[in-house]
């Protein structure tokens, strides 16, 4: 999955920065603190832009190169923001043999968003994710925190449309 540096301008707030410093303070001195701090920082900002990595590196007194090395190693850490509607299609084996690949292609076509990318207006992002362990519901996908399972081709498009409608309503 492409995970190259984003060109989206950083839009972190002062409050977020204060929260981040609190998180770092709580983990300082703990053995192996970098992972828990990065995880908390990602749930705070939604992704890990360079600015955030710099703050973490300075506060934890770990070289930035090392922090970047960790961020780029683990697939859950992302350098790019997620869309307001994040669609994650499970690509575990059970889902794959039940046709998850076709569903991913269909969604990419339907939302005009390639797997591993985000639409220009930052509304939709689409990713192929690792096994989420819900193999009994294969093929399965998540839209934000909602899970949709036992999908047939063509079933998910109307569901995505309702999310898009809602998002349009929020913006209007």
């Amino acid at each position, binding site marked *: 999955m492409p995970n190259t540096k984003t060109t989206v301008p950083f839009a972190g707030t002062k409050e977020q920065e204060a929260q981040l410093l609190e998180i770092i303070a709580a983990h300082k001195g703990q053995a*192996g603190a970098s992972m828990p701090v990065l995880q908390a920082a990602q749930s705070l900002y939604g992704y890990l832009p360079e600015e955030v990595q710099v703050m973490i590196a300075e506060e934890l007194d770990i070289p930035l190169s090392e922090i970047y090395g960790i961020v780029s190693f683990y697939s859950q850490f992302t350098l790019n923001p997620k869309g307001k509607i994040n669609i994650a299609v499970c690509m575990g084996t059970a889902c794959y*043999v039940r046709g998850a690949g076709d569903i991913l292609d269909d969604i990419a076509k339907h939302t005009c968003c390639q797997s591993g990318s985000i639409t220009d207006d930052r509304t939709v992002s689409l990713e192929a994710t690792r096994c989420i362990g819900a193999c009994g519901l*294969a093929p399965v996908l998540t839209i934000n925190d909602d899970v949709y399972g036992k999908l047939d081709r063509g079933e998910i498009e109307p569901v995505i449309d309702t999310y898009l409608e809602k998002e349009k309503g929020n913006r209007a």
Partner: protein
Amino acid sequence: MIRMNFVRNHVLVCAGTGCVAAKSKEIMDEFQLQLEKQGLTDEVKVILTGCFGLCALGPIVVVYPEGAFYSELKVEDIATIVEEHILKGRVVKGLLYHETVQEGSDTISGLNETSFYKKQVRVSLRNCGVIDPENIDEYIAYDGYEALAKCLTEMTPEAVIDEILKSGLRGRGGGGFPTGLKWQFAAREKSDIKYICCNADEGDPGAFMDRSVLEGDPHNIIESMAIAGYAIGASQGYIYVRAEYPIAVERMNIAIAQAKEYGFLGQNIFGTGFNFDLEVRLGAGAFVCGEETALMMSIEGNRGEPNPRPPFPAVKGLFGKPTVLNNVETFTNITWILLHGAEAFAAMGTEKSKGTKVFALGGNITNTGLVEVPMGITLREIVDEIGGGVPNGKAFKAAQTGGPSGGCIPCELLDIPIDYDSLISIGSMMGSGGLIVMDEDSCMVDIAKFFLDFTVEESCGKCTPCRIGTKRMLDILEKISEGHGTMEDICALEELSAHIKENSLCGLGQTAPNPVASTLAHFRDEYEAHVLEKRCPAGVCKNLLQYFIIPEKCVGCTLCKRVCPTDAIVGEVKQVHEIIQEKCIKCDACREACKKFNAIVKR
């Protein structure tokens, strides 16, 4: 005076990930609401519990004392169950799992009589779907923390290790190393600090037994880790859970807090002077972190890259100290062995593989779910009897065990008894227990490509054979699936497989060629069809397919012509249409559009 409420019915609602995704939380709320409406809240207790195993039929609710097993429930069904079953005592047969309904009789058969559960033996999963995982008292009522008390007060650390050695328990995470031996090595090391780690980084796609235990029986893991700590002289433990399992992390944290409150974790446990503490650490999505040295690197806060062994973790592990690392399923057996004795455990299974194994059945199979069976059962029994066979009248093609480290097992080999050694002998491996069934519509070249794609992405890049070798293998597989393969490519695949297996640093690389090697061994004809005839027998590899219109079925509705993005279909209204192969990009749009007449086929 203690007054206990008389509870006449227990309603167990499955709260495993599968059922939660299928709205079991809403079902729980609806039960409470309906019970309140009928004024029954004092007489009926609703409990959220762990996974029952039959995930394909979720959401699942079991009502005791009858043991009525309701499956595939909808929120609307709950009012009926409360009114008919709980209020009037009439089991709602229409909503029961069909196998528990007896024709022409009012009695319902027990779950253990159904084909899904009949051959199962529950050791590891014994508390899943039985107790409320968020309530320590229920775990205690099922002999919880008794094994820890027995170890601390009646047994020496050596005696504990002896018992585990005698049981013959082998690691359930993949390699199958004897657990007792691992403990013994770590116990012999002299060090002021030692660690216990639990590998709950279940990265094998298609395996979810560890998740089910973490969600359904978290105290069992805490207790077993404390026992391991006592046996080797460690006072700190870490549970490394993958971040994709939020429910498991939450329940584990609740359980740890409860165990601390009850004094089963912390200082001076049971007044014996033994101290043990536990912490949950989250993974961040790296398959290689399931390898023990990589996992410890990750807990230390580094990139999860494996290290050469020796030194083994038992000598120099986490933070450079002696460490025992076992996976979730291995730990769940520890308490059982200490409660029931090593002999009882060793009585199950085969000569070299003792006890039971949990498999996650998935893919093209009727009863998707978790099954726990004695070692030595045949794959055929699991697939046909417990799993209910392949659905939709399709033919069985292969069973895949061991995930990206394992291999595909063809129909001819379904009758071998499953244990660690027999699976390795046919080019697969036990792995963590994922068991994916594939039907005739699966292409073996495509499946090999799927797994290689996975390992290429998950290879950490530290050693060359794995980093470059797997990439080269993937390139060749892509070439074959696009119809450009030659017979030399197949030889190159075999050669690369042998090299990567021999020379990689860790288990990920050493086993990465297995999916290719096993499909080459058992389904060579499919590779040859791709190479020699430029044909994909299963009709999966897009570049090798052609779409055709069956003239007898075509009514000339023009629907396919209208959806074709490249104007590759010609024909007038009410006349038979035709596809111009040179223009066709094989997008499948026409075939999808022609579902009504099924006049378009790919082959």
